[in-house]
C-alpha cells in the first residue's frame, strides 16, 4: 500500500470505530438532537473531508457531476434529513470501495510489471581492464560487454567469447532454454543462465529488442478499444442524466401531489433522489473495462504475444479469416532435403553421395542442404573438375564417374531421360555417366506447429488462406499438407496487397481479417489487414513496426492462444458492462419506487465495482 492508501485506511478504521461508538451511545442514552448531530458529524468529517473539499472546488470550477459531488450531495442530504447513520455509512463505504479499487488496480499494475520484468538495470562494460556497471543507455554500438550467469542480456549483440544457455521465457513464453555459443546473435531480455559470456553489441539500447518490447507494451493501453471509448462516452452522458433524474424525482412527485391536493411527502422523495445519486456513480464501469484489457494484454505478453493495443484484442476476437504468408510463417524459411528418389542401381545414400560431392564446391543454400543431408564429411580428393553450368547446375568427376546435378534443362541437355518428375519445392536431378540416377527434392520445411495451428483455426470456423510467391504446384502441395483452405500462388509482393484487399471485400462486414507474415515485403499487407500479425524472432524490423500483434517465438499456434485470450478478455468486458449497467438500472428503478434504500444503493455503487474489478483480473490468466 502506498502512503496515500494507508492514510485512507487509517481514516476508515478511525471513523468506523467512532461511528460504532456514537451509534451505540445514541441507542442507549437519550441525547438531545443537537448533540447527536455533532457526534455523527465527527466520523463524517474524518472520513469525508477530502470528498467535501473536492466537491466544493468542483462547484467553484463549474465541474459538477463528478463522483465527489454526487457523494457530497447524497450524504449532506441524508444528514440534513436526519438519516445520520446512513449519511456517514455511505461516505464510509464509498471510501472503502475507492481504497479497494486503488489497491486492486495497483496490484494488477504490479502483476503485469512483473510479467514484463525484462528491463535490464545495467550493463557490464570493460574499461581499462576493469569491469564497470553502466546504464545500458550509455553503451555505444560495438562495445564489448560481459554478461554473468543470472544476469539479463541488456543489449542486442553477438557473442564474442564463451557459450551459455539462455532463458528466453520472458520474451517468448517458451520455457525450454536455448543454447548459444560464440558467433551467435543474442537478443536483449533473455536471461543468461549458465556461462559467462562476452558480447559485442550491435545496437544501441534504445533500438534493442527489450526497449522495443517495453515501448510496445507500455503504449498498448493508449490505443483504446471500442468498448473503452463506448464506456467513456457513456459515463459522460450517464452522470448528468442521472443527476437530472434525481432532481426530477425530488421535485416532480411532491409538486404533483401538492397540485392534486395530497400530502407532498417531501422527505420521502428527497431520500429516494439521494439514493438515486449514490447508485449513479460510473466508476465501476470506467475502471473495469480498461483493467480487463490491460490484463488481457499482460497475459498475452507473458505468453510471448505482444499486442500493441486493446483495440487489436477486440478485432482478433472477431476474426473470421486468417491469411498466412508462406515462407517464414508457416514454414521455417530454411531449405532441407525432403525427398530422395533413386533409380534402380542406386540407393538414397549413394544418390546423396554423388549429389553432395558434385555440389561440394558451391555455397548455394541448395548445395548446403545437400551436404547437410549427406551427413558424412566430404573428402575433396575424390572429386575433381567441378564446373558450374549457369542456369543448369553443376558437373564434376566423382570417383572417376561423370556426375551431373541440376535442373530438368540440364538433364535434357545431356540426354538423360528423367522418369520421375517431382513438383514439391526444388528438384535436383542427378545423372551419373550420362545416365539418369535419380532425383532429390529440397524444400522449405513446414513448421511442426503450422498444421495444428491451421486445424485449430478451422475448428473455430475460421477460413485460412495462404499467399506465396512459390510455383502453383509446390504451393498446392504445401497447402494440402498444412491443411490450408485456399491458396494464391505465384504472387509478387505487390500482388499480396491486392489479394488481401480482394479478401477484405469478399468477407462479411462483421468479420475481421488477420494477416500473418514476417518479411519486409509484408509490411504494406500487415498494415492493410484489419489486424497484422508479425513473426518477431525471424521477422524484419519493418514487419514488426507495421504489425499490430507480434509473435515473439514465431510459433503460428500462438495465434490460437492469442485469439483465446482475446475472446476471453472481450467476454469479461461484456460481462462487466452488462452486469454493472443492469445492476445500476435495476437499483435506480427500485430506488425511484422507494423499494431500494440507501444500503442497497451502496451495494450498487461499491459492491458492483468490487465484483467488476475482481472479474477483470481474471483476464490476467489463461489456461493453455
Amino acid at each position: 500500500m502506498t502512503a496515500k492508501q494507508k492514510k485512507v485506511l487509517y481514516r476508515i478504521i478511525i471513523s468506523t470505530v467512532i461511528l460504532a461508538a456514537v451509534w451505540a451511545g445514541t441507542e442507549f442514552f437519550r441525547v438531545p438532537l443537537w448533540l447527536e448531530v455533532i457526534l455523527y458529524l465527527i466520523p463524517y468529517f474524518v472520513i469525508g473531508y477530502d470528498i467535501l473539499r473536492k466537491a466544493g472546488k468542483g462547484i467553484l470550477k463549474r465541474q459538477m457531476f463528478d463522483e465527489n459531488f454526487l457523494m457530497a450531495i447524497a450524504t449532506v442530504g441524508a444528514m440534513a434529513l436526519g438519516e445520520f447513520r446512513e449519511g456517514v455509512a455511505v461516505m464510509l463505504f464509498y471510501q472503502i470501495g475507492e481504497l479497494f479499487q486503488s489497491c486492486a488496480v495497483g496490484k494488477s499494475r504490479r502483476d503485469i510489471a512483473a510479467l514484463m520484468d525484462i528491463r535490464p538495470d545495467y550493463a557490464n562494460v570493460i574499461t581499462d581492464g576493469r569491469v564497470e556497471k553502466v546504464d545500458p543507455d550509455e553503451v555505444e554500438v560495438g562495445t564489448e560487454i560481459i554478461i554473468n550467469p543470472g544476469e539479463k542480456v541488456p543489449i542486442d549483440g553477438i557473442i564474442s567469447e564463451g557459450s551459455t544457455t539462455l532463458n528466453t521465457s520472458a520474451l517468448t513464453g517458451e520455457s525450454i532454454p536455448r543454447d548459444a555459443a560464440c558467433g551467435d546473435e543474442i537478443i536483449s531480455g533473455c536471461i543468461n543462465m549458465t556461462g559467462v559470456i562476452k558480447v559485442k553489441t550491435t545496437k544501441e539500447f534504445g533500438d534493442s529488442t527489450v526497449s522495443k518490447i517495453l515501448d510496445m507494451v507500455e503504449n498498448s493501453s493508449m490505443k483504446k478499444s471500442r468498448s473503452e471509448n463506448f464506456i467513456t462516452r457513456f459515463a459522460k452522458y450517464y452522470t448528468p442524466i442521472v443527476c437530472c433524474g434525481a432532481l426530477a424525482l425530488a421535485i416532480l412527485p411532491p409538486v404533483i401531489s401538492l397540485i392534486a391536493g395530497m400530502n407532498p411527502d417531501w422527505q420521502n422523495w428527497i431520500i429516494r433522489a439521494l439514493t438515486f445519486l449514490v447508485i449513479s456513480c460510473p466508476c465501476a464501469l470506467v475502471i473495469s473495462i480498461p483493467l480487463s484489457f490491460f490484463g488481457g494484454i499482460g497475459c498475452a505478453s507473458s505468453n510471448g504475444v505482444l499486442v500493441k493495443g486493446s483495440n487489436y484484442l477486440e478485432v482478433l476476437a472477431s476474426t473470421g479469416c486468417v491469411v498466412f504468408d508462406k515462407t517464414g510463417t508457416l514454414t521455417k524459411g530454411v531449405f532441407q532435403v525432403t525427398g530422395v528418389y533413386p533409380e534402380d542401381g542406386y540407393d538414397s545414400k549413394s544418390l546423396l553421395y554423388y549429389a553432395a560431392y558434385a555440389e561440394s564446391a558451391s555455397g548455394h543454400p541448395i548445395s548446403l542442404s545437400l551436404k547437410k543431408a549427406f551427413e558424412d564429411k566430404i573428402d575433396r580428393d575424390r572429386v575433381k573438375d567441378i564446373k558450374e553450368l549457369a542456369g543448369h547446375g553443376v558437373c564434376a568427376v566423382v570417383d572417376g564417374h561423370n556426375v551431373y546435378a541440376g535442373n530438368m534443362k540440364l538433364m535434357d541437355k545431356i540426354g538423360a531421360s528423367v522418369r520421375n518428375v517431382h513438383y514439391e519445392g526444388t528438384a535436383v536431378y542427378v545423372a551419373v555417366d550420362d545416365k539418369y540416377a535419380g532425383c532429390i527434392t529440397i524444400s522449405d520445411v513446414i513448421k511442426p506447429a503450422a498444421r495444428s495451428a491451421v486445424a485449430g483455426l478451422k475448428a473455430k470456423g475460421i477460413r485460412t488462406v495462404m499467399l506465396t510467391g512459390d510455383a502453383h504446384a509446390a504451393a498446392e502441395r504445401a497447402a494440402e499438407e498444412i491443411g490450408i483452405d485456399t491458396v494464391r500462388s505465384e504472387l509478387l509482393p505487390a500482388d499480396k496487397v491486392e489479394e488481401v484487399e480482394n479478401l477484405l471485400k469478399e468477407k462479411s462486414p462483421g468479420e475481421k481479417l488477420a494477416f500473418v507474415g514476417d518479411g519486409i515485403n509484408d509490411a504494406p499487407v500487415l498494415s492493410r489487414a484489419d489486424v497484422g500479425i508479425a513473426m518477431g524472432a525471424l521477422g524484419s524490423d519493418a514487419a514488426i513496426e507495421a504489425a499490430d500483434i507480434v509473435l515473439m517465438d514465431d510459433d503460428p499456434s500462438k495465434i490460437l492462444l492469442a485469439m483465446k485470450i482475446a475472446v476471453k478478455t472481450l467476454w469479461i468486458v461484456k460481462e462487466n458492462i452488462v452486469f454493472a449497467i443492469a445492476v445500476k438500472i435495476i437499483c435506480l428503478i427500485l430506488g425511484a419506487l422507494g423499494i431500494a434504500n440507501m444500503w442497497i444503493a451502496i451495494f450498487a455503487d461499491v459492491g458492483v465495482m468490487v465484483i467488476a474489478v475482481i472479474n477483470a483480473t481474471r483476464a490476467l490468466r489463461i489456461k493453455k
Partner: protein
Amino acid sequence: MKKVYGVEVDCANCAAKMEEAVRKTEGVKDAALSFMTLKLRVEFEEGADADKVMKEALKNCKKVEDDCEIFL
C-alpha cells in the same frame, strides 16, 4: 513530436477527463492517457513549445480534476 509523461490520478473516470483536458489544450494535436500504466502520451502540433504547452495542459487538468499531477 511525441512525448510521454508520468501522471498521478486516482480514478479512471478522472483519467478520462484529464485526457480530454490535455487534448483540448492549445498546441496539442492528440493525447492519450493510460490509467493502467499512468502514462500520458502527447502529440504536439508542429512548432509548439512542449514545456509551455504542458504547463498549460496541467492547468487545464487541475480545472477538471483537482487531485492530479503530471510529472513534467
